């Protein structure tokens, strides 16, 4: 960012009449996506916040509006109802769901890192001619539907499913394992679905690494494992951080995986929000659930953004 010059904003008119056109197009290039994101990404959050302060009503839409417009919003601050937020603290269902979501996302992120790291490491050390193909193979599942990939596991994990058939035919077990509709199935689902998100940033930081450093350490008598922890792992840390955030943040709010693979008693907040909205039709409470979830995730999201901006500048 230091090399920024004013010419980036107001380019010097190299071509006589190009200056004005350039100034207009540069403003348009910024303004159009900016306004779009303001309208469809930022403003909706304020609407969610506003509705989270309103009362539930049996109507369409099913809430009593608290304020019309911005000026009215400030005029009616006294009438805001924090009942929905109070409700979230009174019913243990909600905070348990939040805690459980954070826990499940945390544990799954750890296992994704544990499985993803050797894959990324193996890819980074593969012969250079093979690497583009391997990279393609990691990206390809990312293009297949999330829903389909989760659905595929139902047939594998069912009591009469393929995993149990396989293990029983080998006489490893004699009664089917109950995996589907348990927390284990959720972990498997998250690790499987988010693995490419972990492997890609890990691979890109491991591939850039200078392996002569490890060789030098080995030559100087450092055992390979120690060299890994002292050199390779610290150098891959940006990839580790990016990968973990890319897995953890969406996993906290995950809906499809706990819904299809998890049991009825497993509470995750994404599923709770979905049920409040679609089954109970309680828009104000589901808005309050969303706002609290957003507050929980705001620190990791900002961290992620900061990291993205930094790596973007590093590539400059």
């Amino acid at each position, binding site marked *: 960012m230091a090399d920024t010059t004013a010419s*980036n904003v107001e380019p010097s008119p190299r071509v006589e009449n190009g200056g004005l056109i350039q100034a207009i197009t540069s403003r348009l290039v910024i303004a*159009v996506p900016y306004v779009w994101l303001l309208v469809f990404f930022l403003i909706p959050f304020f609407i969610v916040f506003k509705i989270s302060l309103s009362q539930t009503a049996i109507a369409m839409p099913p809430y009593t509006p608290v304020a019309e417009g911005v000026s009215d919003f400030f005029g009616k601050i006294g009438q805001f109802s924090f009942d929905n937020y109070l409700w979230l603290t009174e019913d243990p269902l909600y905070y348990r769901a939040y805690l459980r979501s954070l826990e499940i996302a945390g544990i799954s992120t750890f296992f994704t890192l544990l499985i993803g790291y050797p894959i990324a490491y*193996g890819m980074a*050390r593969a012969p250079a001619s093979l690497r583009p193909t391997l990279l393609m193979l990691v990206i390809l599942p990312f293009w*297949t539907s999330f829903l389909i990939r989760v659905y595929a596991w139902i*047939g594998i994990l069912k009591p009469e499913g393929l995993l149990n058939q396989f293990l029983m035919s080998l006489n490893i077990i004699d009664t089917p394992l109950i995996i589907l509709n348990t927390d284990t199935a959720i972990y498997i689902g998250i690790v499987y679905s988010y*693995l490419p998100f972990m492997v890609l940033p890990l691979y890109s930081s491991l591939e850039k690494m200078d392996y002569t450093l490890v060789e030098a350490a080995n030559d100087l008598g450092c055992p390979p494992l120690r060299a890994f922890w002292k050199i390779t792992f610290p150098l891959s840390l940006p990839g580790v951080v990016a990968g973990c955030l890319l897995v953890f943040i969406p996993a906290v709010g995950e809906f499809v995986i706990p819904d299809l693979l998890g049991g009825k008693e497993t509470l995750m907040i994404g599923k709770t929000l979905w049920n409040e909205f*679609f089954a109970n039709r309680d828009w104000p409470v589901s808005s309050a659930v969303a706002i609290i979830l957003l507050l929980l995730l705001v620190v990791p999201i900002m961290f992620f953004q900061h990291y993205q901006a930094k790596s973007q500048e590093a590539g400059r």
Partner: protein
Amino acid sequence: MNPTWSRFNIASVVLGFAFLYLPIVILVIFSFNASRLVTVWGGFSTQWYVSLFSNQGFLDAAWVTIRVGLLSATVATILGTMAALALVRYTRFRGRILFSGMVFAPLVMPEVITGLSLLLLFVAAGMDRGFVTVTLAHITFTMCFVAVVVQSRLVSFDRSLEEAAMDLGATPVKTFFQVTLPVILPAIVSGWMLAFTLSLDDLVIASFASGPGATTLPMKIYSQVRLGVTPEINAACTMLIGVVAIGVIAASIANKRREVQRQRDEQAAQRG
């Protein structure tokens, strides 16, 4: 320099890819199962594809999904490319931090939050939920993915090419279309494809943003999955995978050809 590829490295890559691909392969195989039971093999059959093509609900959903995907991916690619240009080329403008935040945050934002917030926006604006609202929602979340893909290409772009064109008298707009665009085109194409597949695959955001009459294929598949696993769903999933796989492979072949052509051109230019 090529470091040694140890046995451990090979094993972890092979096992990793087996883990990634086996479930999908199994799903595809069982879509050709003659038996109604999804997990017991009863011989080869394409009957589930036949029954799928006579299922009007699935066909309608597929048509909606394709239209939403084509339209939203195209608009998202234009907006996303503009956003990428804004981020890379204009390092100083008012609200840049907010802007880059709004580009990166949707990448990790839990879908239930994005879906709920967009739905409440559409309700507040008095819009009927349906085809238009799903398309708007998909444009919004996929444009950010396009922006990231195009941005990574723009960062490594050699700006002296543009300067040369402008020194030779090309206007900035002409320079963009004749110099910049051809160079970043592969990124724009893969951005479009990413946006299209994300739209094709999305369940959560579509469920919030959609209304009666605009059921997308993932919504249809989801409602069927809740009733139980059937070979028809496997067949529908296989076709969805097939469409995406053909697209991705075609794009990568085209990309490779262009790359070879470019190298040949460069060599020819050097020979003079």
